[in-house]
């Protein structure tokens, strides 16, 4: 398995926590403890959809020091490629699934004198585990959490109850409450680290506000939920294995390659970690990179591609796989 060791688990609880959001609890089949993890980590959940394997990344939201189970929350996205629909419509308590070991691409900077957390919608999940860890270790933190409507905002009341209204502030779009980002980034003590997770527009806005207020880049952290955007079907030739792979409209290149029985490398499946970087041996057409790992120069050079989120339009694409 190129993506890491998988842990067989049973779904022991499914809870509807808000409109379109369900929480899933996974316990190990072998009864052993789950590995500890660090706040901000995610796992890859493997779903067997009638023989078709889907693998999606979800942030862990259970307490990092609680190894009795892992918990994730899944938003049923409107234009689901199948993963969130499967989780919402097919997964039942008692089902067996597989999760990867935790991977953290959104780790706290432990040097931070203060941690300023900014969440939008389902982007709250990594922060729930992070706050557990900050709180246990006595770190100074503050959460600003934007929701669209009260019934779509998960965990608002729990979080305020756990950490108090001075540390958890909720902003409801429907009530015309917005996070005062410019004011927030302007008034922080030296040594503060900012973390943002939510929709792309929100992440871009917060990072821009931080930079404009003079924050060092290293103190601004974000996690983007990238997935392969749908696109025109295309064909890719793998030069080492000699296979020709057809990538469908809603499918990622990585998924199509895996479905053909080729063990390709991966970790985050979201264009961030660089693990699935693959050499392009021939390209007659246009690579649609979509990842945030390669630099603009590397993307322009067209010699490498990230299998998990990138697509292709043109006559022929050959990969060194």
């Amino acid at each position, binding site marked *: 398995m190129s993506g*890491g*060791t998988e842990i067989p688990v049973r779904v022991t609880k499914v809870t509807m926590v808000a409109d379109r959001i369900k929480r899933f609890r996974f316990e190990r089949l072998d009864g052993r403890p789950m*590995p*500890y993890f*660090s706040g901000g980590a995610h796992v890859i959940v493997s779903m067997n959809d009638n023989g078709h394997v889907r693998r999606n990344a979800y942030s862990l939201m259970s307490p990092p020091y609680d190894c009795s189970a892992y918990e994730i929350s899944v938003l049923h996205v409107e234009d689901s490629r199948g993963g969130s629909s499967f989780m919402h419509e097919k997964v039942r308590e008692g089902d067996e699934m597989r999760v990867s*070991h935790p991977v953290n691409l959104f780790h706290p900077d*432990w040097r931070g004198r203060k941690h300023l957390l900014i969440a939008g919608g389902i982007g709250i999940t990594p922060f729930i585990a992070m706050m557990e860890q900050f709180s246990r*270790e006595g770190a100074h933190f503050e959460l600003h959490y934007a929701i669209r409507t009260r019934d779509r905002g998960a965990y608002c009341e729990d979080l305020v109850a756990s950490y108090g209204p001075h540390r958890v502030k909720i902003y409801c779009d429907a009530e015309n409450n917005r996070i005062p980002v410019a004011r927030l980034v302007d008034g922080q003590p030296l040594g503060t680290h900012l973390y943002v997770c939510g929709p792309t527009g929100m992440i871009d806005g917060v990072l821009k506000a931080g930079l404009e207020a003079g924050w060092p880049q*290293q103190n601004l952290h974000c996690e983007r939920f990238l997935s392969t955007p749908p696109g025109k079907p295309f064909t890719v030739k793998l030069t080492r294995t000699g296979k020709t792979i057809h990538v469908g409209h809603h499918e990622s290149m990585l998924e199509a390659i895996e479905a053909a029985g080729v063990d390709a490398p991966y*970790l985050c499946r979201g264009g961030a970690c660089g693990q699935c970087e693959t050499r392009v041996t021939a390209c007659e057409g246009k690579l649609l990179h979509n990842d945030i790992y390669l630099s603009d120069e590397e993307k322009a050079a067209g010699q490498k591609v990230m299998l998990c989120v990138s697509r292709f339009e043109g006559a022929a694409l050959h990969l060194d796989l």
Partner: protein
Amino acid sequence: MAIAFKQETFRDDFSYRNSPENIRRFPFPFDRDEYMYSVNMEPHVKGQKGTVFESLIDVDEHYIAEMHDRALVLKEDPLRYQALPHMMTAQWDTLELLMEEQAAGYPEHFTLIRNGDQWRWINRPLGIDDTFTFGDRATLPYEPLEYITRQAQGDFCIVDQRDGNLWMDAGMVTTQADWSLDFDIGMNFMEWHGPVPLAHQMGVFERALKFLLNLQQGKPTRRFNWTMTINPRLDTSPENYPKWGPDRATVTPENVGDKVHLRVEVQTLWRLPRSNAILFVIRCYLMNMNELVTVPKWARRFPRVLRTLPPELIDYKGLTRYRETTMDWLSKYDDGAPTSPGTFPD
């Protein structure tokens, strides 16, 4: 089976020796007759009995003597142990890993009893039986990293991951091949590898860094490194150069067998769970040439490797003054016969 721990020294009279059983489990690093520069990373998984990979954290007959030598080094120079303040979670992660692995590999020597946060640690070879609260620094006589690395063979560095790089932010370093934690602390991966020749041009460090940034929990990795040391001295630090540097001029054809040692580092890298930092273990093994030639395959192969070493590496590893003498001495044991693949004795 209980290990028969030896009483021996790594200084003054240098009484350190390997038993015949320990020679056969020595991690000889060369799998072919020519020298090859490579990153040579492989998964750190358990190996066969009678090898140093029998347990993931290896304890051998030199354990008590090495821990005694570490205590002597720290007494003279407490800065061999350092940890920056933000590394406390990673220190506890390391304490857990070393206790768990030593207890799992050597239940007759080490026992860990966990009851929630109340832990009891029994280290029979060193006569330690301590109860403490996991996560509470005040319940241990030292910081957690210093406490446990005074009880584990090898040097230990904890590197923090941030800004797409790795940072040397904590460590216990007393058995090092001429590098200094006090000098490197706070440096990033590219900075602390600055002095290494050839590899930079080959892009080795970019590849290695990328690999390590994605190192996964539950999948430790390892590589070998090697050099040579005159006399079985563990502490060949820059701080103590005046003590060991001159030794390199003392090698003669008569004393090669006793004095010249192959020094092998088994380096293991582990993603730590709570901190997301990486533990870098550098475990040093020493074997003198008299011991090495008791394994015919190694006796043939080692002089052949030394002969094909690039000049930059001869210089960087500090072998210039005694490599020729050592090759001449070893050549008596090389009958020119072919050697079998792999590193293990035939």
